């Protein structure tokens, strides 16, 4: 039951992008086509779950026993940076076309605040390891859901006759705002 609440709350009610504003950069950057949005979601899911597990272990088996919690930010970001490198090397070998499509955004996962944000939130909310993993997966799904819906919307707005001043980023942001409003409708569920 707890897990169901964590999942629904992370995907719909407190959506990581539309409600907590984490990972907005890739949300705006790779949302021009549904295909790249799907690829990005895959990469983020993989890194997010791995990063949450590793940072959880670091927090509980290194930082807390040695009482050096103030090194949290530094150690977490280094772990995430090396994980991203690993994912990049694997993707390059396994799926060169996907690697090509994600281009510059793959190294940018390092600076995707969603990853570090979820890792820190898991510690702050005092989840255990299992809850942390569920929370990370749910947030990755929430990120993917928002990203793919948004990519679909943008593919359509690209073909519409948008007022000149609002073309490009402004209309994308306004679309995101309306999407966020739609997600507010879920706020009573949990």
């Amino acid at each position, binding site marked *: 039951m707890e897990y169901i609440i964590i999942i629904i709350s992370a995907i719909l009610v407190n959506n990581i992008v*539309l*409600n*907590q*504003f*984490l*990972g*907005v*950069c890739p949300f*705006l950057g790779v949302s021009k086509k549904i295909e790249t949005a799907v690829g990005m979601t895959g990469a983020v899911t993989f890194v997010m779950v791995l990063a949450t597990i590793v940072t959880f272990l670091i927090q509980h088996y290194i930082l807390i026993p040695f009482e050096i919690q*103030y*090194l*949290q*930010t*530094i150690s977490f*970001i*280094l772990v995430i*940076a090396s994980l991203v490198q690993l994912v990049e090397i694997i993707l390059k070998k396994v799926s060169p076309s996907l690697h090509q499509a994600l281009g510059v955004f793959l190294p*940018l996962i*390092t*600076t*995707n*605040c969603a*990853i*570090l*944000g979820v890792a*820190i*939130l898991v510690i*702050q909310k005092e989840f255990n390891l299992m809850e942390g993993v569920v929370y990370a997966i749910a947030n990755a799904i929430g990120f993917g859901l928002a990203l793919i819906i948004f990519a679909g919307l943008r593919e359509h707005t690209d073909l519409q006759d948008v007022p000149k*001043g*609002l073309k490009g*980023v*402004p*209309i*994308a*942001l*306004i679309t*995101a*705002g*309306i999407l*966020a*409003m739609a997600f*507010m409708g879920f706020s009573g569920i949990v």
Partner: protein
Amino acid sequence: MNQWKNFTKGFIKENPVFVLLLGMCPTLGTTGTAINGLGMGLATTFVLVMSNLVVSLIKNLIPDKVRIPAFIVVIATFVTIVEMVMQAYLPSLYESLGLFIPLIVVNCIVLGRAEAFASKNNVKSSVIDGAGIGLGFAFALTILGSVRELLGSGKVFDITIYPENYGMLIFILAPGAFIALGYIIAVINRLNKKNA
């Protein structure tokens, strides 16, 4: 390069938020009120100036291949300092910015300036560049925060402009952040086109 130009480019012409569209997460997440936006902007400015300073000092010592991790460690150090100082002296601001303070470390603007500017220029221009871009970021956040606070609750910096009952609550909530920023960027685009 002309240092004054180097300093002022961050405000309108190369504003990190409005023009370059970097650092969107703190921009949207911390601008519920003008004062939070300003606080976040100044914290980021401090990190930017200090990391630009250190990176430009040590740029010749770092091997090219490990420069990004090295930059991240430098940035994370200053973020940790900001976090501890804020927790000690500005606990209420620390509470309201919350998660976004440690997340300065993943702000693309900071790493972007270290990589694109500080690692190629001397100490003096790097510090000025950091201050210019940082204050431009603070400026953008304050504007967005003021607009949202005004439309949402009728106040700017806690000074009442019109009764709160007439405010549109949506602008303080998540959707309002996206919509307000969208319209501000449209206006800035228009201004930049006129100047060009």
